[in-house]
């Protein structure tokens, strides 16, 4: 049972494509795990579409009536239409050759079914949707689909804490897998930026609650916390700045702060 979700404002921005890229990735990862948020996002997307396409359709019904310089001009529209609609005759000719002759022919030989191009295409979606598996020192886990195209650097660790950072360029925000071994703890810290955590496996607790698989926790600079895990956990984290340890020995803890960012 997932208890912690992105706020409505975050889900709305997600549906509209307005979040920062790396935040979109971690929100998408939660949504994949959370049926509740899937339904919310579906509703919010519908509402966003209505706003863009249906709200003032009386004004817009005659599209080329728009007279501002920024509107789509008629010559360009005709050119685009021609371009697009010639695609089946022209641009995809070889593609359709392929689908009708080569692939189905091959498929027919492979088994008796008369598979269509369509079916093969659907199956290719399955193949591409097979979760990528990422290994860590105690096992492995499937990656959220949103991260399918990203590469992760090798795991690096300090004590019971290790992380694998994704190679993903999004200003100062860093996206990583964070693994805390059984009985591990991250000392009390605060942030100058944000820290978003999505629990992928295991559980942890802090002063504010107990979190399980699928929980989405967004902390900003006003929060301090000190997560601890009994059974161990793997999280997807997005951190926008080095952690700032609020208890003593901060110099000693510095490597950990850097590691987690």
């Amino acid at each position: 049972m997932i208890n912690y979700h992105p706020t409505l404002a975050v889900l709305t921005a997600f549906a509209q494509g307005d979040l920062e890229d790396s935040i979109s990735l971690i929100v998408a990862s939660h949504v994949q795990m959370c049926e509740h948020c899937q339904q919310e996002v579906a509703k919010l997307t519908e509402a966003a579409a209505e706003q863009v396409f249906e709200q003032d359709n009386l004004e817009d019904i005659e599209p080329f009536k728009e007279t501002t310089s920024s509107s789509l001009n008629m010559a360009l529209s005709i050119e685009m239409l021609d371009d697009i609609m010639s695609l089946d005759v022209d641009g995809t000719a070889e593609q359709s050759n392929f689908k009708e002759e080569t692939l189905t022919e091959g498929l027919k030989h492979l088994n008796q079914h008369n598979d269509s191009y369509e079916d093969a295409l659907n199956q290719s979606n399955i193949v591409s949707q097979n979760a990528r598996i990422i290994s860590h020192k105690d096992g492995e886990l499937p990656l959220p689909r949103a991260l399918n195209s990203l590469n992760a650097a090798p795991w690096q660790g300090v004590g019971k804490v290790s992380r694998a950072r994704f190679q993903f360029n999004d200003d100062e925000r860093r996206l990583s897998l964070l693994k805390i071994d059984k009985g591990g703890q991250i000392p009390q810290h605060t942030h100058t930026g944000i820290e978003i955590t999505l629990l992928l496996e295991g559980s942890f607790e802090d002063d504010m609650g107990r979190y399980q698989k699928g929980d989405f926790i967004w902390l900003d600079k006003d929060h301090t916390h000190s997560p601890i895990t009994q059974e161990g956990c793997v999280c997807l984290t997005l951190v926008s700045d080095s952690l700032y340890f609020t208890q003593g020995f901060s110099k000693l803890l510095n490597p950990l702060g850097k590691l987690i960012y």
Partner: protein
Amino acid sequence: MQLSINNFGTDKENSIATQPQLATDLCVCLDLVAQHKDKKAFTELFHFFAPKIKRFGLSKLNSDAMANELVQDTMTLVWKKAHLFHSSKGAATTWVYTLMRNTCFDTLRKIKHKDEISLSDDIWPTDAEEALADEADFKDHLLNEKVLSYVDNLPLAQQSIIKGVYYQELTQEQLAKQLGIPLGTVKSRLRLALSKLKQQMGDKYHD
């Protein structure tokens, strides 16, 4: 169905968008495009959506040229993927919106971070694709893996073309742009790859 270009936007009687049952009409048009590549229906869709996509593009991309490109790319997807739209799963406007939002996201990433990888389909998987994937059974899955294994035997340069055109449904133009190679090279690699694939499949499975 022939399209009389000169009449665009002036032929009020023929403009489906002026009818009250907008949602139904858009669905009908999409269906016609899916089934018959109906040019008149697509023209109606274009008239309805293009100016609104343009406005959306201007607000997000801050450039007239990029906004035009967003119109072209989004409407190209509508043309090519109309068969993936199912009215039982939601409104036509919602479906087109997701195509537009996703294209816009990838475009912005290209501008801001020079990132050529398309992430939007991983972030917002479309219902249609998911549902279709669910229906296919495991056996077909294995079968397709065989086909994939042939593809995997191709030289890397040819693989990326086949995968782009066939599995990711990119146009050859998009692919050329994505890979940073001339369109002619894409075409010749595709031809080469297809004949190799044909040969391989034929070799193994011809009686």
